[in-house]
């Protein structure tokens, strides 16, 4: 049998039995709280500080030259746990400036009714084209409105600096030919 220790409950004193001191101390606590400054943020006017690594609405970004970075590899569509992403891959027509990239999304949809803001799409993207940025407030009047199309995604995403410039280097190499000629 398990060893048990019985703790005797101390009998209440007379003052305690009237409860009046307890009520008084409760009133003191609430009054004290009332006099402290409140912590409410007046939301639409005041905005919270969004931390650097915040995971907001997923967006598509362009590189500093304005080229859409997404090449529609569909890895995000694959990895997306709630299947919120839907990509129609497309080919970049010959003669375009970014012809050497070959592939770009024809349509890119993120269903914000499904998105769970997990950030896996950003993590998996080999082209650093999709980012969960600081937008956290999404609303719409219909289901269709809640599906972010390609235009909207680029509008939300804007331009981010590019550290690698992989495709620029590629184009330069194509123009200059093999390095060790």
């Amino acid at each position, binding site marked *: 049998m398990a060893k048990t220790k019985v703790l005797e409950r101390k009998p209440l004193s007379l003052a305690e039995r009237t409860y009046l001191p307890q*009520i008084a101390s409760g*009133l003191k606590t*609430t*009054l004290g*709280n*009332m006099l*402290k400054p*409140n912590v*409410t943020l*007046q939301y639409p006017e005041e905005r919270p500080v969004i931390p650097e690594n915040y995971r907001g609405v997923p967006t598509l970004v362009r590189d500093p030259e304005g080229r859409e970075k997404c090449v529609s590899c569909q890895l995000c569509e694959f990895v997306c746990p709630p299947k919120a992403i839907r990509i129609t891959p497309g080919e970049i027509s010959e003669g375009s400036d970014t012809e050497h990239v070959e592939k770009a999304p024809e349509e890119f949809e993120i269903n914000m009714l499904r998105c769970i803001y997990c950030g896996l799409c950003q993590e998996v993207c080999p082209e650093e084209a999709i980012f969960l940025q600081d937008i956290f407030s999404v609303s719409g009047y219909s289901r269709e409105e809640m599906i972010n199309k390609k235009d909207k995604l680029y509008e939300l995403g804007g331009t981010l600096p590019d550290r690698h410039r992989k495709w620029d280097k590629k184009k330069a190499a194509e123009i200059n030919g093999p390095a060790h000629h």
Partner: protein
Amino acid sequence: MDWIPNFLLPFFYAVTMIVAVMTIAGYSVLAERKVSGWIQHRVGPNRTALPIVGSIPIIGPFLTKLGIFQPLADGLKFLFKEDIMPGHVRKGYYFAAPIIALVPALTTMVVLPFGQYVDADGVTQPLVLANVDIGILFILAVSSLGVYGIVLAGWSANSKYPFLGGIRSSAQMVSYELAMGLSILPVFMWAAAPGADYGLSLYGVVRSQDGLWLGIWQPISAMIFLIAVFAESNRLPFDMAESETDLVGGFHTEYGSFKFGLFFVAEYAHIVIGSAVFVLLFMGGWNFLPFVASPWPDGVIGAVLSVLWFLFKIFAMIFFFIWVRWTLPRFRYDQVMRLGWNILLPLAVGNLIFNALLIAIHDRL
């Protein structure tokens, strides 16, 4: 042409009084929300703005931030909401209940004095609609009628939660009515000594407190009365009739829109009246401070000052009501009954006997 002072003037006074009490009740709701907000580190209503008043520089935003216009919006909302009546209610009683709840609350204010006026002849007159000798009896009698509204609402809604709420409410009212009545007897025993010319008039009670407030030398009476007022007005920690955690909304579960609004106003009117009565009985009414002679000058200015001081005390009491609500949790129902019957009633009886003996001894000396 004496129908003007005989009929029109009292009517005008009555309307003014109703408007004043209703306004105070409305702003009590606002105070409730603001104070609860502050106590919980929130801000409370601070968005509602009137079109023109709200855009006055500095004052407009300040008033908006205080939520001054919120009761207007709330009132309009209650007025214009769709009036839904469930199909299973007992119609006549269902409609009558909110009125029955509100009317006694407003009726009691007829006998409430709210200031004094010293006229040119140096005669002090009370500011009251009807200075009846049995003022306190009238208040006790009429205000306890308010429970019929609640019971009727609970019963006529014809569904289980309102029914339970109504039952609880009536039992609670009966229990605390006794202690309340007994608790103020000593006050009048002292205030209305044989030969004194005050009787049971509230004005008389206030007059008797121009030196010592009754709350100070009859603290047990004051405390019992205060607790009973809490119970009678169905305020937390005694809001067994509503008890939204276990009874959904209690007696007004099936009520909505304007009819609910009436219940709502009635509850706050109860608080206002209860605060006023408590201030009159135990906090010296419009008397300035204990042992300090009222500095009100004669004439209209003095009357206004006395009324303002009286109102200030009422507001303090209302604040106390709100403060307690956001401090104490709700009692269990058996605790409510035990407190009423086992503690407050014997205490009030003991207090009565003690004071009776004291008066007997005092008279012998």
